[in-house]
């Protein structure tokens, strides 16, 4: 039986312990994980911690992975999402009126001032969304997951996902363009 998981062959190579396989896995998954955590948490250092935690779990899981139960990419999204949610929960518990400064490297000088300003504006608008709306837009728009995958990861139905997405986009348009939500 052939697996339809595009990551399974690489996972087997990682379980075999090859240096090249480890590098390939990092090259394939790190940008997506970093993007997910960075946009959900709005904090680069925390996002890097989450990415490292997810990879530790990948190394531990590689030899025990059972194909057919879930796609590997869905599993790492679930792990990353849970780690991010834990951090957001803790952050709310120790909420302070003045949010800490967040150093977040954006596009370099080549990106230009206008591009940097636009990026910062979008980041601020995404950061300001309620957690569930942010989660929905990051999974569906930035991670490009299907509606079914995103809804399953969030533990909701597709209709509820669509409602969250529509509200998120209205809020973003209000922040970025000035439209009323």
């Amino acid at each position, binding site marked *: 039986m052939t697996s339809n998981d595009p990551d399974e062959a690489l996972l087997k190579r990682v379980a075999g312990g090859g240096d090249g396989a480890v590098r390939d896995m990092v090259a394939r998954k790190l940008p997506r994980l970093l993007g997910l955590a960075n946009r959900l948490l709005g904090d680069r250092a925390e996002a890097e911690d989450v990415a*490292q935690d997810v990879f530790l779990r990948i190394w531990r899981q590689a030899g025990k992975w059972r194909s057919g139960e879930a796609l590997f990419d869905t599993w790492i999204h679930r792990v990353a999402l849970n780690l991010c949610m834990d951090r957001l929960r803790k952050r709310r518990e120790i909420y302070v009126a003045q949010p800490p400064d967040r150093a977040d490297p954006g596009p370099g000088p080549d990106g230009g001032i206008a591009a940097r300003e636009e990026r910062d504006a979008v980041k601020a608008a*995404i950061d300001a969304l309620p957690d569930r709306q942010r989660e929905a837009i990051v999974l*569906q*728009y930035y991670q490009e997951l299907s509606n079914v995958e995103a809804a399953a990861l969030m533990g909701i139905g597709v209709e509820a996902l669509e409602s969250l997405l529509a509200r998120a986009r209205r809020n973003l348009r209000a922040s970025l363009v000035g439209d009323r939500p």
Partner: protein
Amino acid sequence: MTPERFLEIVDAYGAAARRWPAEERAEAEAFALNDAEAQATLAREAGLDRMLGAYRIAPAGSALTGAIIASARPRRRLSWAVILKGLGIVGAGLAGALVGTFLMMVYAPSTPTFADDDQPILTSFDVSGGDYDLDDTP
């Protein structure tokens, strides 16, 4: 595809058809081709999509990438592949030592011992001459 459902899809998923629900994509695309209001909605949402696309994440630095790659090493030290590889090296060393010992036993000249030497003793003192006469009479 109804106008209401088309609006719901674009409100939720944006203007890019590749992000729309797979089972409704073809119908929604066909609907948009012939509906002026649908095209206006698409244009509005495309503007928001373009802005959202500006939020790019800087790629991982070499320090983070290196730390993650290094974090895989303890796992690999404990893997069976590494253990077997180590045992192979030790086994090859032991085999070499055994072969060396065997070759030494076969080809190295044996050391003579007095116990099994049946040749006459070549070193002796001849005390028959006058030089060794114990008689001290001049």
